[in-house]
């Protein structure tokens, strides 16, 4: 590993990265605008200028285009460097409108941040600023303000390198340069929202989030996009029990820096059409009464008609904990293993970047628990004549309703959203959605990832595993007390080998692969040796 010297301190850093990356890893921030780790180096903003010692003396160089080499000597804290940054800032702000009061980026703006540190604080310009177009509608999700743009070209490179759709370009010359789309070709690729995140200034803002909230009012929780089986890591920004937006959270193994537009807007399901009251035969009822009614129905069905009278339908939209609890307690309380979690309707299109065809977040998790996911098997099982009661966890589909309509069975529905089935079920109980509880999901690459609770539910909703354990309480001789997600995990890790030795709160923020680690050369050699000896 090469040894480099930054500000007279030696660091042992990894080869094959550039100076910004290396410096960030050892805790030195080199300010930059155009450089983005997910894009190619462009080197046009000049903000990352540092002094590099070379054979011809100390020279100013841009850190983003300086690869790490043995014996590299860099100065980042000298007065010259500070003055260079101040000069760059002065040029970048020369034609910037400074309309921070109406700019959505205010509070998370690269210009504001570095201005406080390196700004000149006086205006030496005597000529009027160049006016360009404001509020340009460039695509279904994005609004462009050409005046605020510092022409870092991150968005242009994103469209060229990541989505390869080439919608954006820089036109004109000199101070008249601006970002533009081609005539009749708006920025409407499936990942267009990412240009808003990577824009270091307020030039590209989100149409969806526009003027909704000043960013400093928002709190952030580490969460997951539940739009498909990919499980992209997101920051969930919320205030006052309301989610305002998702921002992609870097995870090298899953989504890198990006999320798709569909996923970005999928936060809306958290507030749309929620089941926020317990229902008994479609009538609103207090939660306690509804849980009691459901528990009585369940107890009667099991005790009068035996174990084959009950069937449970889990869901790949629900978390690992919820599905586990359903399966576990059905076995404990009703000695039945009739748990199915088919995905009837949540299918869509996949693409080569992030989107997956399976639009539920936890199919791999359900499979890990050994729950049957074939829709056919469930529809066959629903035809059994002994069946009296179905517990359905957040799973509703046309096919399921027709299968249930033929049968005179009682239905206990636990769901986060109001659906036709929740309206016709004998008892419907509201459960929390992913912003309102701690839970884990397993993505299509068998990566266990968790969501943090951002806020408490606005309604009576409870985590499904809590309600399920309340339902089975009368059937259990020694009902266990589950208060925290960790209590569920104490059982979960003892039952499933991939989860052994794990605790919920110790799952890293970027998740954990449940695939068995590929054997290292040493381990396989050892195995071969053992085999030879045998």
């Amino acid at each position, binding site marked *: 590993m090469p040894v480099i010297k930054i500000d007279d301190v030696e660091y042992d850093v990894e080869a094959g990265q550039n100076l910004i990356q290396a410096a960030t890893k050892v805790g030195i921030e080199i300010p930059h605008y155009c450089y983005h780790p997910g894009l190619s180096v462009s080197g046009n903003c000049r903000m990352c200028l540092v002094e590099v010692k070379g054979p011809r003396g100390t020279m100013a160089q841009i850190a983003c285009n300086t690869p790490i080499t043995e014996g590299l000597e860099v100065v980042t804290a000298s007065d010259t460097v500070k003055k260079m940054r101040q000069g760059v800032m002065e040029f970048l*702000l020369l034609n910037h409108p*400074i309309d921070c*009061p*109406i700019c959505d980026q205010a509070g998370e703006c690269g210009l504001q941040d570095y201005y406080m540190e390196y700004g000149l604080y006086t205006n030496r310009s005597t000529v009027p600023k160049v*006016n360009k177009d404001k509020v340009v509608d460039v695509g279904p999700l994005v609004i462009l303000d050409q005046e605020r743009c510092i022409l870092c070209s991150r968005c242009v490179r994103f469209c060229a390198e990541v989505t390869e759709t080439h919608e954006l370009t820089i036109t004109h010359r000199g101070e008249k340069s601006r970002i533009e789309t081609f005539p009749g070709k708006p920025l409407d690729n499936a990942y267009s929202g990412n240009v808003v995140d990577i824009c270091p200034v307020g030039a590209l803002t989100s149409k969806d989030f526009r*003027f909704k909230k000043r960013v400093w*009012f928002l709190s952030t929780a580490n969460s997951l996009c539940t739009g498909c089986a990919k499980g992209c890591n997101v920051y969930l920004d919320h205030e006052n029990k309301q989610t305002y937006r998702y921002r992609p959270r870097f995870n090298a193994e899953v989504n890198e820096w990006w999320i798709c537009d569909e996923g970005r807007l999928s936060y809306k399901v958290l507030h749309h059409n929620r089941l926020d009251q317990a229902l008994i035969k479609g009538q609103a009822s207090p939660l306690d009464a509804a849980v009691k009614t459901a528990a009585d129905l369940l107890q009667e069905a099991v005790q009068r008609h035996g174990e084959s009278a009950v069937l449970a339908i889990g869901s790949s939209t629900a978390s690992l904990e919820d599905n586990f609890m359903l399966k576990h307690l059905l076995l404990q309380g009703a000695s039945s293993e009739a748990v199915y979690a088919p995905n009837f309707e949540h299918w869509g299109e996949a693409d080569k970047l992030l989107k997956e065809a399976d639009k539920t977040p936890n199919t791999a998790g359900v499979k890990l628990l050994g729950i049957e996911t074939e829709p056919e098997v469930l529809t066959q099982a629903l035809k059994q004549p002994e069946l009296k009661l179905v517990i359905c966890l957040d799973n509703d589909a046309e096919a399921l309703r027709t299968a249930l309509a033929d049968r005179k069975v009682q239905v206990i529905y636990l769901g986060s959203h109001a659906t036709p089935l929740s309206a016709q079920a004998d008892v419907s109980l509201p459960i929390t959605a992913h912003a309102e509880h701690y839970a884990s999901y397993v993505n299509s690459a068998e990566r266990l990832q968790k969501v943090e609770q951002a806020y408490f539910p606005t309604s009576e909703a409870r985590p499904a595993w809590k309600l399920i354990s309340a339902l089975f309480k009368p059937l259990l001789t020694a009902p266990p007390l589950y208060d925290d997600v960790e209590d569920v995990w104490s059982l979960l890790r003892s039952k499933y080998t991939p989860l052994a030795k794990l605790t919920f709160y110790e799952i890293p923020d970027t998740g954990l692969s449940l695939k068995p680690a590929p054997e290292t050369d040493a381990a396989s050699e050892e195995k071969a040796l053992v085999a030879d000896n045998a």
Partner: protein
Amino acid sequence: MKQVKVKTIKREKMSFWERTYLLPIFQGMGITFRHFIRNLIGKGPNISVSYPDEKKTMPTGYRGKHRLTQRDDGTVKCVACMMCATVCPAHCIHIEAAEHDNPEIEKYPEKFEIDLLRCVYCGYCVEACPCDAIRMDSGIYTIFATKREDFIIDKEGLLNVKPQDPSTARPLQGMPPLPGSEAGSRDLPMADHA
């Protein structure tokens, strides 16, 4: 253990004459009567105001009821930047922003409400405002209503509050952009510092 030296001070007993407090009482009454008689014959510094008939002009800088200032065309000058709502220690300002038809104005408050019962009249909102859109120079200190809801003053109400005396009101500074103004002048006041 370290010994602490204690010095006992004996309190001197008051005499019978002192315990009657007669002299201080008459001294105090003397002062009261002196002022009473002076005011009665109209020679004293009478600082009372016969309030509803007579009204005092509040000094410049007195923080009275808030008002929202207007552009020349009568539209609200506020751009809903939420600086006032952010700095407000009483959380009494509620703003909802919306998109303006004019791209040069871009953002305006669709809703601007101040809960006057909650407000502590600290004046931070006026200081935080980058557009001189909110002021407390109305000099109005009599804020009355019969219902709690009526103390929540909305955008129209705030626009209709007039300054107590336009001649003493703070001069207009840092005019926010006017539609159709010449190049460069659409900058907000903070552009001077860039």
